[in-house]
């Protein structure tokens, strides 16, 4: 455990920023290669249809066009889009990069046109004519489970893709003994991730070296490399994947998409580099969506508010095909469903359903925001039914600090926590008691003030390999160069999280250097040892720990080397600022650079000492980490319009030890705003024919600067015992914690109307309708 804090814990300016704020960074679309060709993809306008024929002669004759490919051209040549999730009896339909015979969602790729400019490729794509025989589509997952529903994949004779059950304790018995059972049905609506940079791929094949290079806007370069190699049928060492600057991911780039293999295939086939850049419209239609669950929840409680058991049925709309982790996401909902509370028994049934929609998959929080929403809404409903204060009911059911590690009946072990401390801190900051008084006063005046709490816990730092489809460890190589500067190679693949800075802080702290002495390299499979990637709030807690472990190995070598030069025992050597010295004798020192050079020139080495200063570690976490906190949202709802004004937002988060508080605040702010988006604005709406009617930013509202307030953030610090630095991770906390705080606040505001729940998003009209109904009564 670290005790010094010369760099760790400091709000250091980011090392990645100078290139980003000067327009000098390179995203995929910024790549210019000689002879570059551009791909445009023809997509299905139908949600479900048979392909009768494709006519593309006109496209092929269009100026500048070099190739047109359809599903038939890649049949048998290009493998299926992979799914890594594994559940018992999971139905896995074939998922070709270009549709074969049938299309199953609007936006499914049907053909690809390659031209010598993006303009000409786009022109030619318009000339491809596809004859479709439209088939009935199904877009409602509950209807899809009915007997007479159209089938998305006929071969399965059902639209049920999987059934997963989880039971712990004695739930049925608890329900029999309960004083009261509180029930509610919820919908966690479908969301669209909308990373500001749409997806993009460039591929180049060097026939001489037999090397395929793929630049992709991805969160997982190594996994992508393995999968592309498999889809193309080439050995993995012939493929290099580079994730250049990536403009946001939020899980939407934690995937392997058909286009990535398709563009690689085209580059090999044409002998020219090929670029494909997604339009925003394509991004809406055919990059993964998030959430989309229907939940029936019931909670058994004692009269005093003690929780006894929870039962939940999850119907998850998986869309038409599996992407990388599609069916696994709702299982995370199951694991986290008991939230921050001691609930001794649980029973969960999750049904995954195929529909004629884009696949859902990991979107920021991935299954955990759904869980937190359910449990935090239920806590408010329990409080409401028992006429108790929502803060009190939470405090009553939290595990106490002495209970940690705390094993839940869902089978996970919460590592550390003091949930009451965070809640109390948040209440104090927001002035909870006064707010309740003000609320009563305003209600009498016909004004609707509401206070919403969310005491969340989340599962992050994904995760132990036993729980992860493709392994859950992370790699890091740290190399002290002969100049005394440090190169870090990390398997994490950040895309905005700032690990070039936080890892540099870590190195500087441990080696007595400054962050300017450190460069962090990521996202290139040729440079970096095999890694897993950045998602699931894992970069710091897993990737950072790998760096930390490599640093410990190097520190040992450095002290041995210094001891050898100083003629003392290694235990007597201490690493100071830019030097190593003898404990208690600071003047008996060797410059850091001198020690490093001695290790490289290797003229005199301690016995058995390997020359050089490079160490690689693969950190395998023993458990997830479990950040937690309490968010409080204060809203006022305008009676006449249904408009929600967020008056205050207080967040107390505990992500364990903090390496850079500036970065933590940034993650929390961004997460909260995405949550506010889900609570108030965002919803991917498919009509009953399977058309995505919120198919652009014109109709899908992500929050703008004027839609959100200033946030009041603070922290408690409960180190994690899972890793030596005690860090937990914070990338998804805001998104996991905040949605129910907003919804609880709005429902709380409208208590005088006698309502208990409102479906998300809490659009103005929806709230206005509630006021109208009340008036009509």
């Amino acid at each position, binding site marked *: 455990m670290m005790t010094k804090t010369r760099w760790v814990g400091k709000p250091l300016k980011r090392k990645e920023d100078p290139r980003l704020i000067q327009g000098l960074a390179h995203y995929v679309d910024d790549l210019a290669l000689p002879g570059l060709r551009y791909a445009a993809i023809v997509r299905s306008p139908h949600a479900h249809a048979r392909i009768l024929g494709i006519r593309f002669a006109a496209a092929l004759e269009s100026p500048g066009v070099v190739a047109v490919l359809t599903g038939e051209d890649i049949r048998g040549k290009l493998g299926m889009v992979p799914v890594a999730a594994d559940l018992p009896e999971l139905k896995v339909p074939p998922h070709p990069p270009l549709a074969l015979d049938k299309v199953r969602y*609007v936006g499914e790729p049907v053909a690809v046109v390659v031209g010598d400019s993006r303009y000409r490729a786009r022109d030619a794509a318009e000339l491809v004519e596809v004859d479709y025989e439209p088939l009935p589509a199904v877009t409602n997952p509950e209807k899809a489970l009915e007997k007479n529903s159209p089938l998305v994949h006929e071969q399965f004779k059902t639209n049920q893709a999987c059934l997963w059950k989880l039971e712990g304790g004695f739930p049925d018995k608890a329900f029999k003994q309960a004083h009261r059972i509180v029930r509610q049905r919820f919908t966690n609506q479908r969301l669209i991730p909308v990373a500001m940079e749409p997806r993009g791929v460039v591929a180049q094949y060097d026939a001489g070296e037999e090397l395929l290079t793929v630049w992709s806007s991805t969160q997982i370069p190594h996994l992508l490399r393995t999968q592309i190699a498999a889809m193309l049928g080439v050995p993995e060492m012939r493929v290099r994947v580079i994730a250049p600057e990536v403009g946001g991911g939020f899980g939407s780039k934690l995937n392997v998409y058909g286009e990535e293999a398709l563009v690689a295939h085209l580059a090999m086939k044409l002998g020219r580099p090929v670029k494909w850049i997604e339009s925003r419209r394509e991004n809406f239609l055919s990059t993964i969506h998030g959430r989309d669950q229907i939940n029936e929840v019931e909670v058994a409680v004692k009269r005093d508010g003690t929780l006894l058991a929870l039962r939940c049925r999850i119907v998850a709309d998986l869309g038409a095909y599996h992407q990388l982790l599609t069916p696994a996401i709702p299982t995370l909902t199951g694991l986290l469903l008991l939230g921050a509370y001691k609930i001794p028994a649980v029973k969960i049934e999750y049904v995954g359903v195929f529909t004629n929609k884009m696949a859902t998959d990991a979107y920021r929080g991935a299954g955990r925001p759904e869980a937190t929403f359910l449990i935090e809404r239920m806590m408010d409903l329990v409080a409401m039914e028992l006429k108790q204060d929502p803060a009190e009911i939470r405090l009553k059911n939290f595990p106490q600090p002495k209970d940690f590690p705390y094993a839940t009946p869902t089978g996970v072990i919460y590592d550390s926590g003091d949930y009451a401390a965070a809640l109390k801190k948040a209440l104090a900051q927001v002035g909870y008691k006064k707010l309740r008084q003000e609320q009563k006063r305003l209600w009498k005046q016909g004004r609707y003030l509401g206070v919403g709490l969310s005491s969340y816990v989340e599962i992050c730092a994904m995760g132990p390999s036993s729980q992860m489809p493709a392994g859950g460890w992370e790699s890091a190589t740290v190399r002290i160069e002969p100049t005394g500067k440090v190169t870090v190679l990390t398997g994490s693949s950040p895309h905005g999280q700032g690990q070039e800075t936080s890892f540099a802080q870590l190195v500087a702290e441990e080696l007595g250097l400054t962050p300017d002495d450190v460069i962090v390299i990521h996202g290139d499979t040729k440079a970096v040892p095999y890694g897993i990637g950045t998602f699931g709030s894992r970069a710091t807690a897993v990737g950072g720990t790998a760096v930390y472990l490599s640093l410990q190995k190097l520190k040992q070598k450095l002290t041995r080397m210094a001891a050898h030069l100083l003629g003392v025992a290694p235990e007597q050597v201490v690493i100071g600022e830019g030097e190593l010295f003898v404990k208690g004798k600071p003047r008996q020192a060797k410059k850091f650079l001198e020690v490093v050079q001695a290790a490289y020139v290797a003229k005199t080495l301690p016995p058995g000492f390997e020359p050089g200063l490079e160490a690689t570690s693969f950190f395998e976490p023993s458990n997830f980490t479990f950040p937690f906190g309490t968010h409080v949202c204060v809203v006022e709802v305008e009676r006449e319009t249904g408009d929600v004004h967020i008056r205050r937002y207080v967040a107390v988060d505990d992500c364990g030890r903090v390496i850079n508080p500036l970065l933590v605040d940034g993650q929390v702010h961004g997460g909260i705003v995405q949550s506010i988006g889900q609570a108030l604005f965002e919803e991917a709406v498919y009509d009953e024919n399977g*058309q995505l009617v919120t198919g652009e930013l014109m109709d899908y509202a992500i929050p703008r600067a004027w839609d959100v307030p200033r946030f009041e953030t603070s922290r408690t610090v409960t180190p994690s015992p899972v890793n030596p630095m005690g860090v937990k991770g914070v990338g998804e906390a805001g998104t996991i914690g905040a949605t129910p705080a907003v919804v609880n606040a709005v429902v709380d505001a409208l208590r005088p109307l006698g309502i208990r729940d409102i479906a998300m998003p809490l659009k103005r009209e929806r709230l206005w309708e509630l006021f109208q109904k009340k008036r009509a009564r």
Partner: protein
Amino acid sequence: MKIQGNQTITAPREKVFRVLVDPQAIARLLPGCEELEPAGADTYDVKLKLGIAALSGSYQGTVKLAEQRPPERLRLEVTSRGPWGFADGAGTLELEEKKGKTLVHYAGEVKVGGMIASIGQRLLEGAARLVIGQFFKNLEKEASA
């Protein structure tokens, strides 16, 4: 999108019905119809210029008089396909005699797909109203002539 409404045409019911099933008249009734060719029983291939103002494009499609019960009921099915997707409509027209005039009750559903469905959402209803308005204006002109 569901559509329904009523429209009075100042012509007797038989006349209105005749116009509605006359291929040459149909070509003049359908807003933006540029060509109409027979293609089997009660079915016609059409070229349509659909849309409003700058937002119009050429569509190819079919018109089918799916059900005819002279002079009171008619079912029309229209399909069209263009570079931005498709627009298909099906609906019934019920003709009611009203003192020498005809009250037309219409009800139907329009399905659109592709670009129009995901971009033009907020304009769809207004556009449908505009096209229906044009249709009835044309019908009035044809039937009362």
